[in-house]
């Protein structure tokens, strides 16, 4: 259906360009151009009580529609008139409409409600990140500061070929029922999504027991660049010792231009629930 509409619009533009008489119109007509992507402005996609999102688009007669339920925005969705306040984890999708232009692409951003991480007595990174992307060491992963799409901004840990493996000793026994790893995928930057995410606990800090793990297969084929959140949930665990392993894609698969070389893994935050 979607492709039919697209075809029809394309065909209509073709007709308009040809003016049905075979003569080219001199100037570009209404309906020829697509609106640019609306730009979202906000402090951080991670928030503790609420996030405020502004959408800028100073172009007369443009209307912006958005959803918070994951659906594609249409002209029957919520209309943007004032800054959006998000109080629960949600995905914002926005699209611009104008009577003389083709609709914009859908711009999407995931906002996540977080709680401050439990106080930690020690955090150990089992393998060191690449020195160019070492951030502020392991604490970078628990500072509630999201890295930007510029992965050289010092808020990322980047691993070439290695897994991200951390072992942490919490100051006191804490109940944990799930975790989200926030990272980046960027095919052209040879940065691959996590292959597998696993969570372990321990009584003594020596012997760890696997509580939950989940495989992600996105890196097996072509993927879109952008931020990613990988999540696992499990029955509430009371523990002082935790281990998290975010498994690197390892060797870049055959379909990619970097086939056979070590893949990059980029993580900026680990959110415990």
């Amino acid at each position, binding site marked *: 259906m979607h492709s039919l509409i697209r075809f029809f*619009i394309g065909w209509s533009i073709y007709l308009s360009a040809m003016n049905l008489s075979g003569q080219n*119109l*001199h*100037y570009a*007509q209404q309906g*020829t*151009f697509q609106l*640019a992507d609306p*730009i979202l402005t906000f402090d951080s996609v991670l928030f503790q009580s609420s996030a405020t999102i502004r959408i800028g688009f100073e172009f007369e007669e*443009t209307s912006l529609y958005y959803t918070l339920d994951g659906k594609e925005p249409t002209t029957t969705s919520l209309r943007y008139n004032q800054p959006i306040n998000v109080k629960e984890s949600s995905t914002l999708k926005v699209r611009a409409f104008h009577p003389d232009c083709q609709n914009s692409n859908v711009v999407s951003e995931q906002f996540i409600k977080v709680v401050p991480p439990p106080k930690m007595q020690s955090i150990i990174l089992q393998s060191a990140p690449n020195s160019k992307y070492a951030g502020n060491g392991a604490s970078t992963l628990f500072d509630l500061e999201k890295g930007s799409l510029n992965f050289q901004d010092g808020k990322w840990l980047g691993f070439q070929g290695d897994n991200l493996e951390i072992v942490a000793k919490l100051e006191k026994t804490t109940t944990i029922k799930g975790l989200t790893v926030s990272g980046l995928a960027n095919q052209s930057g040879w940065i691959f999504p996590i292959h597998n995410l696993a969570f372990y606990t321990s009584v003594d800090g020596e012997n760890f027991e696997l509580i939950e793990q989940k495989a992600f297969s996105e890196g097996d084929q072509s993927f879109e660049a952008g931020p990613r959140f990988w999540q696992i949930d499990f029955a509430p665990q009371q523990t002082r010792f935790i281990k998290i392993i975010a498994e690197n894609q390892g060797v870049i698969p055959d379909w990619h231009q970097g086939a056979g070389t070590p893949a990059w893994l980029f993580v900026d935050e680990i959110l415990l629930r």
Partner: protein
Amino acid sequence: MKRRQFIGSTLGALAGTTLGVDVFGISKNRLSAYKDFIIGHGTHQYKIDLNWGALNPDFYPVNDCHEMVQDSQGRIILLTNDTRNNVIIYDKSGKLIEVWGTDYPGAHGLTLSRENGEDFLYIADNNRHEVIKTTIDGKVVLNLPWPQESGKYEKAEQYIPTETAIASNGDIYIADGYGLQYILHYNAKGKLLNVFGGRGPGEEHFDNAHGICLDTRTPEAPTLLITARQQNKLKRFSLDGRLLKVIDLPGAYICRPVIHGQEVYLATLVSRLPFDSGSGFVCILNQEDQLISVPGGSQPIYRDGKLNRLQQTVKVFQHPHDVCVDDDENLYVAQWNSGKTYPIKLVRV
């Protein structure tokens, strides 16, 4: 909604064709359902001619269309970094007149200067690390090599000039926009007189000093306008290199200032990073350095004297790199990295 509109348009068009008469009372080649799309704001609004200057790329190819000027015969001169024809000369309608130039692999900056009744061109070549002055038909009359005598450079490769500006006394100003960010001031014969700018934290320094021009709108007190593209700023300097004013254009990665009449026109490469984001437009400033029109971009809005961040609103342009304003006040927009397309003409309404 969109779809219904198109269906309506198509039916209207069919009806008009079937009847074979001008049922809508508009010119013969237009039907009421179709309207020219107009971009820009206030006094500076434009129709868009997407086909202007399109040539057979097998014979007259372009790579990046970097800069354009109009010569004193009214011809439109395009500089491209395809060495099969670095210079393509059109009439204003987009008809090809002639091509020349095969020696400018890094052809980037193009400035026209009328000296003793004759047109000359100054080509800033990124790859050759020098500026070349030619006659209007391409004979080289002066080379300005890398400024070893300045003491600021150790080798030619550090010097990547992007633009020139020529004063009425023949003095030549060169912006090293991809190199060490200095502005080099020569006399007409090529003797280095002064160096200023360079990288640094203060406003008198540059990050991507990409474009430069002489501002002679106040004839008794000419100044220099220089873009700091990465900083989204246009900076005004005295002819001897003192910073006079900084004009903020947040979100606008401006390439070079071009003065026509009382306005400054600036091709704006992108409005967000990365540099290939295809988010460019054109900026037009009045004599008070206020942004008055943004063809392809957001309406200029000042709050408490500060300009709202600019963004592309409609995808007319990808990466505008220069604007040429002709004697009819129409614009020609040359684009970098836009799929080897020819310039877009904007016709003022």
